[in-house]
């Protein structure tokens, strides 16, 4: 029989340490929905999402009941809309509206894929779609958007970087009545993964099968709780070992749920994404793991090293537990979604510059950072360029999701509520990058040898 210690460990993980399946995301290809007429295309999109996704929420809830594990979100990601739009034409916002309608009908809480992949250049429809993002995100509730502006293989599209600074600012302005929430649903990527189940950056890559289930597992609280049992003088190797073992167990649960969901829905299982994704709930913070490792406050000296160790150990444990680990897998550091990060930012210990360093070793990038209203478009573009450069050179995914706090004074906070959390306006360096950003063009792809 199973032993009592194992049983109690699992129950404590779920009940007290907030272990959960963060999301079951169904990826749906929209490539076969293209038509020479926009009305036909959007009808096909709506029908396909409803046909494929109709049982997604119900199945998620059934698994939740069967195993007693919370499955927090059920979501859908679709083929980057720019591809369908390029063929079918019309008003791009209509595609966002139909995605929103389909998401509401199916009962998911986000739909990702109002996206464009422009890392090497713009194809037909890309610029039009990107320009429509502010309107699309302000007139819909559930649609998420992402733009990939760089990759290790192709360099960084600085024309796109320039545009995205303006788009982010405009999106925040157009949703200023709603805490600038539009900008929280828009991610700018370098090396975007095609199978990521986490929002706002999820989209269904063109190399993916027609329909696929991707599962995102989380559990920063579980890792922190496991570390808290270690003596304070335990060597750091042991810290890594504990994280690895915990990550293994968490991912095994994700694998179980993924296989079950895939069987029930008759859709192949794509990947398990083991990402320590914090929520504003107490005890669900990545910053608190770093503090448990031995830092006074996240963001202080030592943070990058602790995060590097955490991210690596999570991957090692996760890879062993599932045959198909993918997506972003690692540790997320979204500021407003993490109570420990929020506190550190309020104290001024956590700064954007330190966060940038942290993104070189964590799984994503500058995430959910509230920046001052008067931050210039060029400055936002330059922040994107810096972040993309880290991703490009280090062959990893990086992203920028910053929220210009329109109408909010310094010292005040934005509050999105729910999983997106809240956070103080963080200080941005005011030195101007204007001339560089206005140059446009493309940063060439980096050399992959002579690594120093």
């Amino acid at each position, binding site marked *: *029989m*199973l032993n*009592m210690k*194992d*049983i*109690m*460990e*699992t*129950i404590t993980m779920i*009940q007290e340490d907030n272990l959960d399946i963060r999301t079951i995301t169904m990826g749906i290809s929209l490539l076969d929905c293209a038509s020479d007429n926009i009305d036909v295309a959007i009808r096909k999109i709506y029908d396909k999402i409803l046909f494929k996704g109709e049982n997604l929420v119900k199945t998620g809830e059934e698994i939740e*009941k*069967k*195993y*007693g*594990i919370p499955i927090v979100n059920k979501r859908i990601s679709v083929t980057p809309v720019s591809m369908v739009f390029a063929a079918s034409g019309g008003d791009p916002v209509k595609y966002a509206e139909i995605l929103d309608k389909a998401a509401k009908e199916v009962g998911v809480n986000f739909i990702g894929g109002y996206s464009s992949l422009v890392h090497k250049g713009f194809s037909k429809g890309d610029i039009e779609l990107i320009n429509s993002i502010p309107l699309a995100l302000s007139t819909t509730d559930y649609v998420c958007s992402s733009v990939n502006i760089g990759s290790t293989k192709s360099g960084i599209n600085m024309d796109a970087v320039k545009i995205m600074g303006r788009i982010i600012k405009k999106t925040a302005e157009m949703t200023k009545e709603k805490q600038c929430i539009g900008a929280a649903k828009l991610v700018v990527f370098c090396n975007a993964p095609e199978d990521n189940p986490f929002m706002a950056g999820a989209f269904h890559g063109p190399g993916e099968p027609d329909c696929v289930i991707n599962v995102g597992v989380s559990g920063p609280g579980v890792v922190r709780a496991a570390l808290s049992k270690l003596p304070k003088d335990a060597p750091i190797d042991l810290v890594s070992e504990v994280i690895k073992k915990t990550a293994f*167990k968490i991912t*095994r*649960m994700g*694998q*179980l749920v993924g296989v079950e969901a895939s069987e029930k829905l008759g859709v192949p299982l794509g990947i398990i994404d083991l990402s320590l994704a914090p929520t504003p709930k107490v005890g669900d913070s990545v910053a608190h793991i770093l503090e448990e490792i031995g830092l006074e406050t996240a963001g202080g000296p030592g943070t990058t090293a602790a995060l590097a160790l955490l991210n690596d150990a999570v991957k090692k444990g996760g890879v062993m537990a599932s045959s198909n680990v993918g997506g972003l897998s690692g540790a997320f550091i979204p500021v407003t979604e993490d109570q420990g990060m929020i506190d550190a930012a309020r104290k001024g210990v956590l700064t954007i510059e330190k966060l940038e360093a942290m993104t070189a070793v964590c799984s994503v990038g500058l995430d959910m950072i509230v920046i001052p209203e008067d931050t210039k478009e060029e400055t936002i573009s330059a922040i994107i360029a810096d972040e993309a450069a880290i991703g490009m050179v280090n062959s990893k995914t990086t992203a920028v999701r910053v929220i210009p706090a329109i109408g909010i004074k310094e010292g005040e906070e934005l509050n999105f509520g729910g999983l997106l959390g809240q956070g103080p306006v963080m200080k941005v360096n005011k030195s101007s990058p204007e001339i560089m950003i206005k140059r446009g063009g493309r940063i060439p792809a980096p050399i992959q040898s002579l690594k120093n």
Partner: protein
Amino acid sequence: MRAVITVIGRDMVGILARVSTECANANANVIEVTQSVLQEFFAMVMLIDISSLNMELEQLKINLQEKCPDMTIHVMHENIFNSMHRI
């Protein structure tokens, strides 16, 4: 298919009886029981067969919680423990 019931709380008369009665009502066969009483605390792990259960597992859990309101009760499918703790 099997499930694990755990019951934790202050020791009192009739816990095992109540839990097993609810299992019987749900047509779940009790396969194994381990229990320990440490001072006044009671902890029990029960393995039950749920292949011919006459209600949802969730319902059994609700019934158990109603019958033993002062105890912390969890009912979970065996697969979770197997996948987490067995390679």
